[in-house]
């Protein structure tokens, strides 16, 4: 019985499946009001507890979950659903009040004032005491880890970044380091800073709400809960030696071999779709010759080489050009027409480019899972 459950969890944890489930559950939950009740919260927290209980008693999952530095993950498994619920239940209640023509619950109190001394000072005092007690108890019970002395010659497998960077490390599976490790984080930071300047719905502030801010909250959810929190948890619990996937209850064997048969878009188009078909149809040998070889010389030192590269990567360049240059315009005319009118072209451009950048992540993840795509554009100088 227990083994069946563990096996089931291992299967559910498979990257494509758990990622899809998280997205679907998040977005279905946002739309269903009955989810945001005490009972549902209790059920989720009970589920987390059951998972942890089974995990702590499992020889393999126990190794990960009991690791002192993974405590934040265990804490997050509780706090993030809890605070999500605290935010959403207030939002749902406020939405209901406003549907009935009332004002949000906060409004009834926001015209009154409360003395800082003693009311606020007491709240802060109690919060600080509780926080201190929790920290001291945590510190008394769990010793800080100290592994063997640093040894540059001995690489641990897997080598993991600190937990809050594991979402980015997970992205390294799908993108090159220049993107996942440098450009993407910079865009994320700039994108976060841009939020207040592109959200033109300035009225819905100072209270919890969902209905008035569906797009904003939906997007933030996707970025925060799916692409960050979920990937952190994946990176901690589900990635073992060689950064291969292991279910939570699977043994981390360093011998797991995963066939790497990833294919670039160019190869996909020229070889798998065109050349082979044409060769089969015409029998002319020229079509079967494969991709041109491209050397890693500076473009201006060998223009022929550069030209061959452009030709080979033509499909990817067109795809990216379409994605970043044409798609925003198309969307402005079709699905996002209302958004475009609300935001004006400047804000719209920023928003849509941030959106599209964010969606490179799930896009590439799914293309990898479905057709083993490696790069859209692969050149000796840069890969994407």
């Amino acid at each position, binding site marked *: 019985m227990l083994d069946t459950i563990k096996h089931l969890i291992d299967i559910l944890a498979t990257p494509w499946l758990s990622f899809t489930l998280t997205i679907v559950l998040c977005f279905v939950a946002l739309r269903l009001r009955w989810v945001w009740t005490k009972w549902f919260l209790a059920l989720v927290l009970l589920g987390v507890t059951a998972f942890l209980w089974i995990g702590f008693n499992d020889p393999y999952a126990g190794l990960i979950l009991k690791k002192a530095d993974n405590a934040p993950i265990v804490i997050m498994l509780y706090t993030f659903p809890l605070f999500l619920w605290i935010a959403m239940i207030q939002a749902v209640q406020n939405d209901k009040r406003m549907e009935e023509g009332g004002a949000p619950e906060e409004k009834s109190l926001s015209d009154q004032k409360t003395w800082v001394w*003693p009311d606020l000072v007491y709240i802060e005092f109690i919060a600080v005491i509780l926080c201190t007690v929790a920290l001291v108890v945590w510190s008394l019970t769990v010793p800080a880890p100290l592994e063997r002395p640093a040894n540059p010659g001995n690489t641990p497998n897997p080598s993991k970044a600190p937990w809050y960077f594991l979402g980015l490390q997970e992205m390294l599976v799908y993108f090159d380091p220049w993107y996942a490790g440098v450009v993407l984080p910079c865009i994320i930071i700039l994108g976060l800073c841009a939020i207040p300047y592109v959200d033109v719905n300035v009225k819905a502030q100072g209270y919890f709400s969902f209905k008035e801010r569906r797009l904003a909250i939906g997007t933030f959810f996707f970025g925060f809960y799916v692409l960050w929190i979920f990937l952190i948890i994946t990176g901690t619990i589900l990635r073992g030696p060689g950064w291969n996937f292991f279910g939570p209850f699977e043994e981390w064997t360093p011998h797991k071999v995963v066939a790497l048969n990833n294919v670039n878009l160019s190869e996909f188009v020229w070889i798998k779709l065109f050349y082979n078909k044409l060769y089969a149809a015409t029998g002319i040998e020229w079509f079967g010759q494969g991709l041109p070889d491209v050397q890693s010389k500076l473009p201006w030192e060998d223009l022929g080489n550069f030209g061959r590269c452009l030709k080979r990567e033509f499909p990817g360049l067109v795809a990216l050009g379409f994605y970043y240059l044409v798609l925003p315009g198309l969307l402005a005319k079709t699905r996002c027409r209302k958004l475009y009118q609300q935001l004006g072209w400047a804000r719209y451009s920023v928003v849509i480019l941030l959106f599209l950048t964010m969606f490179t992540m799930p896009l590439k993840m799914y293309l990898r899972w479905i057709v083993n795509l490696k790069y859209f554009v692969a050149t000796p100088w840069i890969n994407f």
Partner: protein
Amino acid sequence: MSLYLRFKQWRDRAKENWNEGQVKRSIFRVGIPNTDRKRVLVVLGNVFLHLHPTKVRSSSVRLRFTWCAGGLSFFLFLVLTLTGVLLMFYYRPTVENAYTDMKDMANVVPFGIMREMHRWGAHAMVIMVMLHMFRVFMTGSYKPPREFNWVIGVILLVLTFLLSFTGYLLPWDQLAIWAITVGSNMAKATPVAGVAGPFSEFLRIGGVPLIHPGDDARFILIGAKELGGITLNRFYVLHCVGIPLAAATLMAMHFWRIRKDGGISGPL
């Protein structure tokens, strides 16, 4: 007179002297804040309390609105400052000493939970700041006039990560150097400025590359071609001085802006 009475007399006189005396009045100007006037004065007269206004919107004092997440982020920062200073008494940031100092801290130093308080406090602060950001988003509190305070917040979030990241290296054990290796290897891939990054090989004069392992982005970050004593020293200085100063400055700005933007947000 009995001894007890004499003691009582002495005690009452001492109390009176203390209450009326120069010492107490120099420290506590207001006394017990039992009138509205005194409540105002006590908040205005205390450097810590005066971060607050004297009265706040009733809807935003409630725990269910702020979750106290911003306040506790700040409190954890203070805890980390205090425990960090204590750790600095025992810790020397050199390749020879760092690891053994860590061991001594666990085995020799009395009341040895400072390292635990510091490490778990740091994890807690990262989580708390993330929760705080989530709360601010969910209440739409980044909207005008609070846009810029959100931007300051984003920078604080980055600084919180950097504080934790630089601190991760200091124990100089396997966990530390390999986590930092993974992180700092990213810098190698910086476009144009990292040796392994795209386009860096384009920068060359007469065949000599301008970007090489001795001057690229990773070198600037870790101060050497490989992680070593220089890196340890650099991260130590950033961790104990540079980033905390920057974070404290930005927190001061953050708090000041909350006041200037009309206090914690409420429905318009």
